[in-house]
């Protein structure tokens, strides 16, 4: 009871932000932060990429958002030209026990290895056409590798009449990305003890970018199994 009264008292001065904004705006938004944050829900997520800001300016939504309170950006939310959301995601997947610096170093070392091997190949190539074909940008190779590793279908266990069928069906974009990164890392960790992570990761990325290797095979195996089980596909909707 006392608590309620205090809340009411707090809301009487109408110019205070915390009283007015929630009433004006019941925007349910995607929360990038973990639940316990010191900022209430009506604080907007920061828009830190230049492209996103340009989009907002184009669609004339900026003046609407500009008046609202915004959470401070996290350390990784930068407008730097070198920021790549996918690379960031991969680094976060590589990370163990919150050792981000180490994960970042490992991924960057893998990029260095890719760059070295590609440059070597570039100089070994004799004709300019062959040289033009060789991709030297490790980030582009990572993008290509993940694109090639992404599965299109998913097998879902569905129980019908006491028997569990593996039922194929479409996969969401998010899940597909997750599986691609997970498979790449699992393939990388399946290595000799003497081979270091950055080397193996570089090889796996190059293989996947070439549409060969363990990860692409794993994806194709999944597709094969889906094809074999296609007769059960209608169970998904019953």
């Amino acid at each position, binding site marked *: 009871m006392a608590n309620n009264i205090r809340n009411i008292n707090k809301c009487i001065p109408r110019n205070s932000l915390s009283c007015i904004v929630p009433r004006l705006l019941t925007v349910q938004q995607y929360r990038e932060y973990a639940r316990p944050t010191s900022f209430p829900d009506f604080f907007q997520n920061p828009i830190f990429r230049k492209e996103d800001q340009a989009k907002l300016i184009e669609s004339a939504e900026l003046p609407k958002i500009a008046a609202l309170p915004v959470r401070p950006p996290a350390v990784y939310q930068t407008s730097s030209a070198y920021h790549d959301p996918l690379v960031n995601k991969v680094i976060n997947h590589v990370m163990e026990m919150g050792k981000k610096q180490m994960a970042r170093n490992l991924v960057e070392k893998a990029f260095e290895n890719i760059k070295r091997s590609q440059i070597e190949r570039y100089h070994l190539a004799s004709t300019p056409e062959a040289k033009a074909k060789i991709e030297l940008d490790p980030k582009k190779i990572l993008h290509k590798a993940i694109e090639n590793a992404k599965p*299109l279908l998913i097998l879902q266990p569905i129980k019908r009449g006491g028997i569990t069928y593996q039922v194929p069906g*479409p996969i969401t974009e998010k899940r597909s990305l997750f599986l691609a990164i997970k498979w790449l890392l699992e393939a990388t960790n399946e290595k000799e003890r003497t081979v270091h992570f950055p080397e193996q990761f570089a090889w796996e990325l190059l293989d996947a970018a070439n549409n060969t290797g363990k990860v692409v095979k794993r994806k194709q195996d999944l597709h094969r199994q889906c*094809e074999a089980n*296609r007769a059960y596909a209608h169970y998904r909707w019953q």
Partner: protein
Amino acid sequence: MRLHPILFAGPSQKSARAPQREPVPFKMLLPLELKKTVSGKGDKLKEAACMQEMAVMFACFKKSEFDQQQCLKEVAAFKGCYKEYSERMSSQRELGKKGILVPGEKKLTHRQLNQLLKSFPPKKSVK
């Protein structure tokens, strides 16, 4: 001789163990009215989405030995179909959650129906 009480405890018309005698008298346990709401149980959509596209894609995969590069058209069709479907479902879910009534709509969700029933409550039956 002492008679055991069990012998007298057989199913009689007084106990519930006896078979009921026709006609069984009707007892009204709940008021004989419909509820003021409908449940959302029947609203689950049983639409088989993208089955056609999936079959086409599988056929192409089989032909090209699961090389995705040769089936770009089919893969794009399948992806686009699922994307369109999930967008449609999410927008429908959101509309359904709000229970907004669209004039002239034939198929109503249970939330829309409840909205209607709330604004035009069914008349109480006269006893």
